[in-house]
């Protein structure tokens, strides 16, 4: 008992010290300076012999050597010969939802029992300790939009994550940032004839979606009516005096409608507060999906469009960003071999804002190579880099914090020995929120173990 009371007595002092230390730590964090590298700022061109200063998780200054004052207490890292660029953003992948694809116990990718599952939240499954995450960030991918698998028309809601942090809480930057609506044909329930199940066709999928949105509108109306009546009752001074059996039943305190999480989940999208990620590959599906989105006044970003080459002017007219590809998608038999490779360039030419995505989990690290390959088919280099940095940040509403090397933004910074889009380039160091990420993964550990190191 004595001991215990002493500990208790000591608490105010301990707490005080903790507060003092952490405050001091935040205020006095040493600036880190990357000096002498080639800065690909994305927002304002390339700076040869650049200086980038980071402190307290943010980029403080970006500029040419000589023009930037290096703080005296700074830790200076010589980045001569290195190329420095903002952390890459993958605009759709499944990191944290799978470990070994063929092992179902490690998968939390999709709830396939029903097609309309908007109340599934990626954040409920996101596994911060996934072995796949270090593998991805070792190649400079620092942020990602995590989506469920696309086998449902409405599989759930996406989260935007940072690929380093102490816990999933810290890594999940924006929960329910967007909601995929998939209309590629893959969502049909193509079981054998004797096990057939609705929806078997595109008609079925579209009807089911329409009904879901109508139900949600109804649901919203019921709640609006309820709120309105509740307010009316609350505002009428005589309302409380209404006796049972009165003719004017409206004046009674109304009963709240039953809550429905599924329909509730659709409301922010019906109200246009958040974007739908509208996925279609072929031109006919695209137009069906867009009609549906227009019908319900949904705000949307387009996804895939791999075989929509015949309607790219129409796409441009929609004036929305496009998550393009993946460009490795096999062309249809009627398409030229480079039809999908060339899609980013074709969209860019028409003024469409494009972003790239890995649409993968294990191979997220290869995101920059897709952007690189698109340049071989006509996409300007700067646009390719933008499509995995600033364009992505703008598309997901985080451009004030991510996507370029600018003062004030989160210090997600990559140091590599060359061109970020070339697959020969070796990433040397990744900073996430100003912290040096350990450049190790399960794979590097295996490599070292069997290299006899």
């Amino acid at each position, binding site marked *: 008992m004595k001991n215990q009371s002493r500990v208790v007595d000591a608490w105010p002092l301990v707490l005080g010290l903790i507060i003092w230390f952490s405050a001091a730590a935040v205020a006095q964090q040493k600036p880190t300076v990357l000096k002498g590298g080639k800065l690909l700022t994305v927002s304002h061109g390339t700076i040869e012999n650049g200086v980038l200063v980071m402190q307290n998780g943010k980029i403080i200054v970006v500029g040419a050597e000589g023009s930037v004052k290096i703080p005296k207490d700074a830790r200076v890292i010589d980045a001569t010969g290195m190329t420095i660029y903002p952390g890459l953003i993958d605009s759709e992948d499944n990191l944290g939802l799978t*470990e*070994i*694809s*063929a*092992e179902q116990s490690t998968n939390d990718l999709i709830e396939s029992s029903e097609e309309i599952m908007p109340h599934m939240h990626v954040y409920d499954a996101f596994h911060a300790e996934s072995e*796949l995450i270090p593998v991805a960030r070792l190649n400079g991918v620092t942020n990602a939009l995590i989506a469920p698998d696309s086998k449902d028309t409405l599989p759930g809601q996406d989260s935007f994550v940072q690929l380093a942090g102490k816990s999933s809480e810290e890594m999940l930057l924006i929960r329910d940032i967007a909601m995929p609506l998939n209309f590629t044909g893959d969502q049909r329930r193509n079981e054998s004839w004797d096990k057939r199940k609705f929806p078997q066709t595109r008609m079925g999928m579209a009807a089911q979606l329409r009904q879901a949105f109508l139900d949600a509108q109804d649901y919203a109306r019921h709640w609006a009516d309820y709120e309105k009546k509740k307010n009316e009752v609350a505002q009428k001074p005589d309302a409380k005096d209404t006796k049972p059996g009165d003719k004017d039943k409206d004046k009674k305190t109304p009963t709240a409608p039953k809550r429905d999480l599924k329909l509730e989940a659709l409301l922010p999208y019906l109200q246009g507060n958040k974007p739908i990620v509208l996925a279609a590959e072929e031109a006919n599906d695209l137009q069906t999906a867009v009609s549906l989105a227009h019908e319900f006044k949904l705000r949307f970003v387009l996804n895939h469009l791999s075989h929509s080459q015949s309607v790219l002017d129409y796409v441009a007219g929609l004036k929305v960003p496009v998550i393009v590809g993946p460009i*490795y998608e*096999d*062309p249809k*038999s009627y398409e*030229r*071999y*480079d039809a999908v490779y060339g899609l980013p360039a074709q969209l860019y030419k028409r003024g469409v804002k494009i972003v790239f995505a890995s649409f993968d*989990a*294990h*191979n997220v*690290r*290869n995101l*920059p*190579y897709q952007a*690189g*390959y698109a*340049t*071989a*088919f006509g996409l300007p280099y700067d646009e390719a880099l933008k499509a995995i940095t600033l364009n992505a940040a703008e598309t997901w509403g985080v451009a004030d914090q991510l996507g370029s090397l600018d003062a004030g933004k989160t210090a997600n910074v990559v140091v590599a020995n060359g061109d970020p*889009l*070339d*697959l*020969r*380039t*070796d990433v040397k160091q990744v900073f996430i929120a100003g912290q040096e990420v350990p450049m190790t993964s399960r*794979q*590097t550990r*295996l*490599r070292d173990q*069997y*290299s006899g190191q």
Partner: protein
Amino acid sequence: MNRIATGFVLLIMCSLTIQAQQPAAHNDVLIKNAVVMTVTHGIVQNGSVYIKDGKVAGVGKDVNAPSSATVIDAGGKYLTPGIVDSHSHIALDDDVNEATSPITPQMMMIDAFDYQDKAIYRGLAGGVTTSLLLHGSANMIGGQAVVIKHKYGLNRDALLFPGAPRSIKFASGENPKRVYGGKDQLPSTRMGNFAVQREALTQAQDYMREWEDYNAKVKKGDKDASPPKRDLKMEALADVLRGNLLVQIHCYRADELLTEMAIAKEFGYKVRAFHHALEAYKVADQLAANNVAIATFSDWWGYKQEAWDAIPWNAVMSMRKGVRVAIKSDSEDFARRLNQEAAKSIRYGGATDEEALKMITLNAAWIIGVDDKVGSIDVGKDADLVIWDGYPLSSYGVPNKVFIDGDVYFDRSLPGFGMTHYSEGQ
């Protein structure tokens, strides 16, 4: 006499017609002003390659070619050998697995070969000129492969690689045990897998003995000797034991790589290559000692349990231990950009550019057994060549023109599908 003379004339006319139908006999082309990546003898800046009758007739800085030869100015672009894909399942119309029995060595992939599959053209557009089309991995012993050249647009037999050795596909690990275990059949474990394999090989030994006995009797003049029943399955396995088939084994885990080599030793055949071999880096010394090659992915991993220990350094770590390494596609998609997959070995482990290129040319050709004909730019070899836009071993390399046996089968500059078949200068 008259009849004979007429016949003779007809014969000459026939042979003339046949010759006219074979453009390979006519090409006479000089590609100049190229950076020639030979694979076997370095890189020739401002080099030339002379093609005659479908073969490489000269390569180097200065090449003797007749003035009549058609000249192609490569404009300083890179020129490499045609890419060789040592593990492909394209053009088989999904008839890849006869998954009704774990031992089906009598399956001939040529019987499923769909020579009109667009995937052949798309691989060609990625610079692939030769592919080994293999049985899938549902069965422990799947079937016999077919080797093709990507001469898309010609008839079936024109796509078959002339004189290529026969290969047979074995498989181990998760796939067979899943396929048969899922039906509650043998095999459903790795023990079952190898038991099934050993049993089949033992039966083949018996089959061979029966024939040897019969042949010995016949030789002795025994007229009453009756021949054993011919069994296609056993004949195929007997050819494995006789060393008449190149054995290509789908295998992931290190322990299984060792077991497969031990079984091969036990039954006296050689393993030509392990395919996938994602854990080769763990037993690279043993692979090198047995002269077994690997045909692996550059960085694909995690798609199943036995791919969990895959690391992108596998190719180079194995190579440094003396293993002959090829990067293969095993996918319609990777077959379109094997050059990029090979280039990853520069980043992961520091392969030289030539070593990286070798992984998709000469080493792959060795696995198929056609390294005397393709896989490098050397005099006497088939003129299977690729002129590249951009540097081939980077994110930016795209084939501009692809030659097979000296003829152009892909030309990026052409409108429409960009595919064609023509002889330069004709």
